[in-house]
């Protein structure tokens, strides 16, 4: 019989606080990484991939353009052109890595911060601005790019993703061995969402039905003002095992590793091997949204430490050091970003306000008699004003 150690609870193993906590700020030993913050290419026994020069330059371009969409939108909010903006600064690699790992037939269920993934799917960034300007609630057609509408209730979309994946199973587009046919779903959410009942229920449904869905969690360490320690006492990726499927923690600021891990997880799903949890370990460099003030709840030390792990800088270092891109390339990308910024600026200001009577459209597939009557009444009321605008 062994003697009980001081401070150890009998029979329950080690204190979980030792597994998780401030000492793990580098992501811990399980972190999958292919490109270090210093721009050094490293290898991983399971998730290594060969990347073409075009792919590497493409990742760089994607991330620079995504950052520009984000900074431009933030500026537009400051100028009063957007009501609010949910910033993704610092999460470009997580989103581009995940977004580029998708095939056209895959389907994405985003939160409201997946601007980089939207860009990868071909959604016009101006359409994203419409929602935050308040002229619509998401104007893109989800079926056009297999990219769902932004979901604002935290975690609700993970269940939609799981159901959609169950539909794919029934449509016979999983595990056929045909790479152009086999499809998977990716559900995006954050560390805060991992506490939601819907997210946990989606894990259970996905595991129970072996649904082809990748749960892609961008752990950006903060849910508005609440640190990750408020959501979990173990690394999030370790939760997956309790639900009966694998979990992986990847350096979410490393676009190569995020791409490699997501691609493997999607492939697993497409082949009919079921769900995977991917924890993209990253950091929310900006505020939760433009209405938030992070100086009230977090230290700038953290921010400084994460600045050294910038997702774009490390790719630039790698490209330059290995002679894969020259000044002309970087200048051209910069010019493209400036042009995109200009287009967004002008386009955003030109977005028309919806007409008041449009409120009644699309509550149902066909307007009910009740709503027609309300619409008529409102129309007559508006018309009673001089110079009525309807």
């Amino acid at each position, binding site marked *: 019989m062994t003697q009980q150690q001081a401070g150890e609870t009998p029979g329950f193993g080690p204190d979980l606080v030792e597994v998780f906590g401030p000492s793990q700020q580098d992501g811990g030993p399980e972190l999958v990484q292919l490109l270090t913050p210093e721009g050094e290419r490293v290898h991983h026994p399971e998730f290594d991939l060969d990347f073409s020069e075009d792919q590497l330059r493409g990742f760089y371009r994607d991330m620079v353009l995504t950052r520009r969409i984000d900074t431009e939108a933030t500026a537009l909010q400051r100028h009063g052109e957007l009501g609010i903006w949910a910033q993704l600064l610092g999460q470009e690699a997580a989103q581009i890595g995940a977004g580029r790992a998708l095939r056209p037939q895959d389907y994405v*269920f985003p939160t409201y911060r997946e601007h980089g993934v939207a860009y990868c799917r071909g959604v016009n960034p101006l359409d994203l601005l419409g929602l935050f300007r308040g002229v*619509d*609630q*998401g*104007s893109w*057609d*989800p*079926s056009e790019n297999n990219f*769902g*509408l932004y*979901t604002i*209730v935290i975690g*609700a979309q*993970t*269940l*939609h*993703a*799981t*159901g*959609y*994946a*169950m*539909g*794919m*199973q*029934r*449509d016979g587009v999983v595990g056929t061995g045909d790479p152009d046919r086999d499809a998977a779903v990716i559900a995006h959410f954050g560390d805060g969402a991992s506490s939601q*009942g*819907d997210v946990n*229920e*989606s894990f*259970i*449904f996905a595991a*129970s039905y072996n649904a082809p869905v990748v749960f892609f969690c961008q752990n950006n360490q903060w849910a508005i003002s609440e640190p990750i320690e408020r959501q979990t006492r173990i690394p999030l990726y370790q939760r997956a095992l309790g639900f009966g499927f694998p979990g992986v923690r990847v350096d979410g600021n490393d676009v190569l590793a995020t791409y490699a891990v997501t691609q493997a997880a999607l492939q697993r799903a497409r082949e009919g091997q079921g769900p995977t949890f991917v924890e993209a370990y990253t950091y929310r460099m900006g505020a939760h949204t433009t209405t938030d003030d992070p100086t009230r709840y977090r230290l700038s030390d953290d921010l400084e430490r994460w600045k050294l792990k910038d997702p774009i800088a490390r790719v630039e270092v790698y490209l330059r050091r290995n002679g894969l891109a020259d000044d002309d390339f970087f200048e051209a990308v910069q010019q493209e970003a400036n042009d995109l910024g200009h287009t967004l600026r002008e386009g955003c200001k030109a977005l028309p306000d919806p007409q008041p009577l449009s409120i009644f*459209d*699309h*509550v*149902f*597939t066909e307007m*009910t*008699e*009740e*709503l027609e009557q309300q619409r008529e009444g409102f129309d007559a009321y508006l018309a009673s004003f001089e110079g009525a605008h309807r």
Partner: protein
Amino acid sequence: MSKITLAKGLNMGLRKAMEDDPKVLLMGEDVGKLGGVFRITDGLQKDFGEDRVIDSPLAESGIVGTAVGLALRGYRPVVEIQFDGFVYPAYDQIVCQVAKMTFRSQGKIKMPMVIRIPFGGGIGAVEHHSESPEAQFAHTPGLKVVACSNPVDGYWMIQQAIACDDPVIFLEPKRQYHADKAELDESATPAPLFTSRVVRGGTDVTVLAYGPTVKTALSAAEAAAGEGKSIEVIDLRTLSPLDMAPVYDSVRRTGRVVVTHEAHVNLGMGAELAARITENCFYSLEAPVLRVGAFDTPYPPSRIEEDYLPDLDRVLDAVDRSLEF
């Protein structure tokens, strides 16, 4: 023609809908092998397979939330909430997602989903098994809410709800599942889904009812007839949208209205009906619209539930008060 119960009517209707459209799926707790705790889905998994009649984990939000995804993929999910009081874990998905998808997407997304809920009391159950949450859903824009009251309507209305491209909350009076039988003529043409129906003509007082109280109202009308009072009974059938034309027509003839439902009176369907009738039939009214429903208390222990629920006597009491006004 055969005589069937409400449970059988619903079962036959579900079977017909599944035969007619391969995209129709059933999902819920115990709906497969067991055939549902009320046996509404009896035999369907055996005939349509586990991919189309899906036993789900015990998580109502999960059931409705995954059904949203299935609908997005082109399916027409019919989910069963086992008991009325268990719908609340799914309330967020129903109110924030199911109800708003079409509006949010400016019509690009359709949400053809049916959420079946056995509702109402009278079966001697424990807490949470006898509730009437219809007003909470009728209050939510984007949802359609209907309640069947008899076997024939059960057969037709469930098929019509499944064929509807909008989400439908489908309320089934559980007390009636295995009670009264009715003749079903499968070759008949049913009335449109979102319509009310006069189920007994009368001249003195109009009684509005739906779901389980239709039977109560009809019994009351029968009893009143013996005393020389002529009660017209309308089975509302649809709670959102409301089909008010037959109601206004009736009220303009009788001038007196009693609304009865098992739900609480406060802010219930009766309140909305009273408001609309007052607005539209003000000069025809001989008495205020009276409401007979449950008291504004939580559902009581089942030994006293019949005191809590509106019954024949309480409906007749209201009829008398209306006539005496």
